[in-house]
Every structure is written in C-alpha cells, then in structure tokens.
C-alpha cells in the first residue's frame, strides 16, 4: 500500500472505569475520530499484558493505544502505575526489535475526558499513518503472520 492511501489498523486497550467511559462519552457527545482504531475493554490498565500488544502487532495491527485512569485516580488505586512501567519497558524492547516505539502509546483519560479521548485517538491514527505500515502480517488477509511469511517464502532463498 502506498503512503497516501495507507489506512492503519490500530488496537486500543481501555480500562473499564476511566478510558472506556471516556470513549463512551466521546460517543454520546458525538465527537468524531477516525475509524482505524478498534477498542478492547479491560477492567484496568493494570490488566494489560504486554503479550496483548505484541500479539496485536504480530497479527497485523500497525499501532497499539493503551489508555487508563490518570495516575492517582486508578479505580484499583495504583495499578495504572504498573501499566506505565510495563509500557516503558515494552517500548524499549520493541525498539530493540526494530519497531518504532511510537507505535505504542500510553494515554491517561478520565471518565470525563471524552474530548481528550477523541483528540488523542485522532492524533495517534495520524502518527501511525505517518509511520507507515508495520508489516507484520496483514489484518485483512485472514491469515495474520503467515500473510507475510508467504512472500518471503516464495523468495525463500537469499543470495548469500
């Protein structure tokens, strides 16, 4: 896909108490943001297992948005700090594997911040669009990873 027409696929993780409600609020307030982002609800950003992020990226997502309550306002008191730490370490690891750390982003949004959610979502889609496709499998070919293995397998042999 060429850059102009590139429509990124983004998975967003929300926490049940703040950011998911922020997303709901964005909806009820009829605020618009691009359709590229698909949300998954967790009870808490502390539930976010880095596996989910890597799984998403490996299965064709071009970016992952992680959202949770503001520090100090976690429904479960301080679990969002754990999310923050995992996020920071995960970014470093992905970077070491050649994935632009900007492809994952952590955003705090309270239940009242529907507008913030919408702007952040829009901004993130644009950031990812600018980065271009990640290329780990295409989300729509129904095969995920294998999707990109095929080409490389066709040209299986590389000239040494």
């Amino acid at each position, binding site marked *: 896909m060429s850059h102009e027409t590139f429509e990124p696929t983004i*998975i967003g993780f929300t926490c049940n108490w703040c950011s998911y409600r922020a997303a709901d609020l964005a909806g009820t307030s009829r605020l*618009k943001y691009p359709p590229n982002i*698909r949300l998954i609800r967790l*009870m808490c950003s502390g539930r976010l297992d880095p596996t989910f992020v890597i799984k998403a990226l490996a299965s*064709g997502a071009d970016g992952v948005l992680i959202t949770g309550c503001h520090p100090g*306002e976690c429904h479960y008191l301080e679990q969002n700090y*754990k999310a923050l730490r995992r996020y920071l370490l995960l970014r470093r690891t992905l970077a070491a594997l050649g994935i632009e750390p900007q492809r994952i982003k952590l955003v705090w949004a309270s239940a*009242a911040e529907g507008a913030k959610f919408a702007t952040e979502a829009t901004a993130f889609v644009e950031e990812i669009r600018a980065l271009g496709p990640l290329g780990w499998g295409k989300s729509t070919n*129904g095969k*995920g990873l294998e999707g990109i293995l095929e080409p490389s397998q066709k040209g299986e042999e590389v000239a040494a």
Partner: protein
Amino acid sequence: MSGKNGHPQERIGVYVCHCGSNIAGTVDVEQVAQWAASRLQHRGVVIARDYKFMCSSLGQELIEKDIKELGLTRVVVAACSPHLHENTFRTACARAGLNPYLCELVSIREQVSWVHTDRTAATMKAQAIVAGGVERVLHHQPLEPLRVPIHEATLVVGGGIAGIQAALEIADAGYPVYLVEREPSIGGHMAQFDKTFPTLDCAACILTPKMVQVGEHPNITLLTWSEVEKVEGFVGNFTVTVRKKARKVNTDLCTGCGICQEKCPKKVVDEVYEAGLGYRKAVYTPFPQAVPKYPVIDVANCIYFEKGTCKACEKFCPTGAIDFNQQDEILTLQVGNIVLATGYDIFDARRASNYGYGRLANVFTSLEMERMCNAAGPTGGKIVLRDGKTVPKTVGIIHCVGSRDRNFNNYCSVICCMQSLKFAHLVKERTGATVYNFYIDMRTPFKDYDEFYQRVLEEGTLFVRGKVAEVTDAARLPGEEGKLIIQVEDTLIGKQRRIPVDMVILSVGLEPRRDAKEVARKFGIACSANGWFTERHPKLDPVATMTEGIFIAGCAQGPKDIPASVAQGAAAAARVLGKIRQKEITLEPIRASIDESKCSGCRICNGLCPFNAILFHEDRMVSEINPALCQGCGTCVAACPAGAISGTGFSNEQILAQIEGLLLLNLEPQPA
C-alpha cells in the same frame, strides 16, 4: 492459539441493533448481520439477526426464542455500551436458561456510529467488532456471581457534624454503629464555631443536642481519643483494628465534675479546639459541652509524666478516677460498611507570609476569629486585638487566603465568602468598627445566602474587589504609623490602595487532612491529586467510593458547608442502610485465581495487590488469591511470569481471541 482451532461445538447467535437510526444511520446493520452469518459461520455462528431495538422487550424475546429453539450456547449482541445494557441482555439470556456470562455485548454505537461518518468504514469496523465479540465469546465460561453476607454493624470515622449525622441515621434505623473520633470529644470544627451562616443561629445550640444524642444512643458505641490502625476484609466483612488511646482517666468512675481541670497547675496553649488562641490544662475536656464528658490527660505536657511529681488531679479527684497507669487498648471491630467523615484542616496562613500571620500580632485566621467571637472562647466573645484589651476601630477581612491561588490551592474553598460576611456582621455588631472585605469574587449560592450578603452590604461593610498584595506594618504615609497597612489593587477603581487597619482577619481556605492520603491507603480508597477522597461518580454517586462498602461524607470529600455536610452524612447513611437491608451483596464474578501446580512461588505477584488479596504460603511456597478480597483488576494475571494466574471474565484466551477477531484473522474465505 486456542482461538484458531475453533469451537465447532458452540452455537452462537449474533444480534445487531439498529438503535433506531442511532446505529443504522451510519452502519449498514443488515450487511453486518449477513456478513457475520457467512464469514463467521465456521466459528459457530448459526444465526445473525438485525433488529430495530434489541433492548426492547421484543428484541430480548427474539434472543430468548433463538436460545430455546436454536439451542444457542453463546450470544453476541452488537449495540450500545455494555455500561448501559450488558445487564439487560445477560438477564434475557438467563431467562432463556443460558448462563448470563455466556453473552457478550459489543458497542457499535458509542464506538462506531456516533463517532464515525464514513458509512463503509463504519460498517467494516462494526464487522470487525462483531468478529471480536464472536471470537471472545467462544472462550467465555459460565459463571456464578459471588454472594457475600453483610455484617450489620457500621464503622463511622470522624465525629464531626457529617459523622454524627451518619451515625445517628444508621443507629436510629436500629443498626449498631461504632463512631471513632481522634480527639477527646466529638463535635469537630462545628463545635469551635460561634454562629452559623446565613441564619446566625448559635452553632453550639444546634450541635450539642445531636452530640448528646450520640453519647446516649443505645446503638452507638462511641470511641473518642481513638484511631483506626488497620482495616482488613471487604464489603460486608471488614475487620477494623482501633487503638483506644489511654485517657489516664477511668471513665467508669469519672463523673466529669471538672475539678481535676481546675486544680491542674499546667497551662497549655490549645492548638486544636482554641485554634491556638487560648489555653487549656494538661488534663482537660476540650470544651464544657464535650461528649463524652470525661477529660483526658495530655501526657506530653503533664508535669507528673515529665517530672514524676504533682498528681494534683489525682489528689483532688473525688471519685479516684485518675489512673496514671492506664494503657492504650486495641479493639477489633467487625463491620459490614464504613463511612469516612474525617473532615478537613484549615490552610496554614503562615505560608502566605506576605499577609504577616504569625509575625504581625494583629493578623488573625478565621478559625481564631470563630473562637474569639464565641462566648465560650478565650475572650468570652469580645473582639479585641492580640493584647487582649484594645477594641479594633478598623478591621480588614481578606478572602481566598490559600484558595484560588496557584501558589497554594487552585480550588475554591466554598465557605470563605459566607464566613467572611458572617465576621463582617459580627465585628460590626460587637465593635461598631469599620469593616473592609477584600474579595476576588463574591460567591453566595444556596438558600438565603445572597440575602445575607445584601444585609451585610446594608450594614455598611466596605467591599474592595482585589487580591491583597501584602499586609505590612511599615508605615510610609501619615496616619499609617502603628497600623497594619493593607496594600491592594482596587480593581473596580483600578487604583493601588493602602488601607490602614487595626486588625486583619484572614479567611483561610480548607485543605484535606494532613494524613488524608495515608488514611485513603489504609482504607483502600482513592484520593484526588490534592488529597480529597474520590467519590465513585462526581454526580451520580457522590458518597460511594470505588471500594465496595466504603462511603465518604462531609469535607473529607471536598470543601463544603454545614448543610451540605449534614446532607452527605445522611446520604451515606442511606446507602449503608440499603446495603445492610440487602442482607447479602452479589459481586461481579470477575476474579483472579492461581493454579498452584503452576505457581513457582516466585512472589512477583505478592506485592501487586492493593487489596491484599494475595497471600503466600511459606510452607508450600505458593501464592493464593482470596476471591472475596480480589476486585478483579487483573494486574496479577498480567504480571504472573509463569502464567499461573488466570482471571475470569477477562482471561488471556478471551482477550487474545478478541484481538484476532478485531484483526479479522479467522474468517471463512470469501465465497467466490
């Protein structure tokens, strides 16, 4: 991945809601339904329907009918936010005999139709979301909600007006209450006040009867001079450890006659009740109407405890109630609910050093002023300067000290305007002095408040609109010598003014208790950044907290005046009573559990749970989760390096499957 190898045995029904035109307006719902029926068939989708209003009784019946006739084992509804109708559809499934937790509601309204405009894109996203729901629901398990019996007793922390109100409401309803107060007497700040705005009725006159009620109420166990040390357990079953500090006075013998206080030779500045403006003895009750009536010995200042001699109180006590050897007691209370009404501290005016409090003798805080006005106070209600005799001729009252000020607190402390007006009135009434009020904005909402403002205006109090720059005793112009000069920009005339006065009253703001954050941690509730306790919902659930069974009332939740505090006290009580009457409460069965055979006892998870639900068995070297304490956040599930912890409702399998669904990984190949 288990998501891939499919679950042919499951029979899934997919229901796409039009929500009138709310969804159908942007999403081609028929298309979504057909798509699901064809492309997700091999994932177990046996029927996919669209309907005008799924949440209508007809819509629900549609689902129930299919469950019965088509033998559905899973249901996916694509409609609005689960926060609105999850329950609706779960109950529908339950009615049809399907475990409610085998139903998944995905939002294509808040997350699609209302936030997107492009119909094609919106429809595609809706399909992805449905696919996500289908993949996810394949991994759902039938669950039973947890039921926990509720202990009838309630703990109320804080004996201010809010706590008193809550305690009385619950006790009157016939349920036991423990009221814990840190100070020797209940009453809180209100007991320090003289008059209350706007009605100007005497604080003591309306408060003391309630205090007495509390003292005498058969259902209320009053624990003053006591502090909560530990809180364990969960809604319905809290175990609370309270330290009952040694009064050094045997309350069974003490009659509260007060002789000990007369005879005690040691005079101490009373920082608490008299706001530092007056004195008390080393053995004391904070004020005559104290409840309970029993004094306490202030060990830190008692001559006997310092020097080993004196014992004046003991000598003169007619009933021999003084007991120097009395020790702290540790009580363990079983309660079902907790109300926190721990109140506030006043802003420390010394921090705003440009107003000279603490340096310039005749600068007073509003709380000092309350005491000074109070007939029972250090000056017997006379308004005088620090020398204790001179009556001021000019008085300046400065609003918003420490409030609405980025150097200190950004918020408005709510009560200061009305309080300042009250002082303006009292000062005028008692001294006839000229009174200036320096304000940023006048805030007089609520019943009869603004009327009171008008009244004070008519009384001839002068109002200067502007934030005071400084209060100084450096005279520079004739007539300033020996006065306090208030330097202020009068924003209404746009001029700098220097107004010499005899007395300055700082209307200080309200701040969270110094130890608010620590208390929040102790009770496992959340604090806002500046330390006020966080309510479950700012509008719809103002007295509940995120932690089941713990409620908040009064200024602990944020600055408010007496009427509001009382209202919240009563509200919290009502919520508690509601819970008690349920006898038992059902908890969402979203819980984590540890597979002991997989647990390596690495103890990574042990420190992660804010609710202390994870315990470690040294003997077996494995960790275990107490399901009743677990709140289901899933942090430990995500953290367990051995993958030994799993969480119901949001298991790894469910989330990973949903990811695959959202990314359309397992679609039936397009029919050519």
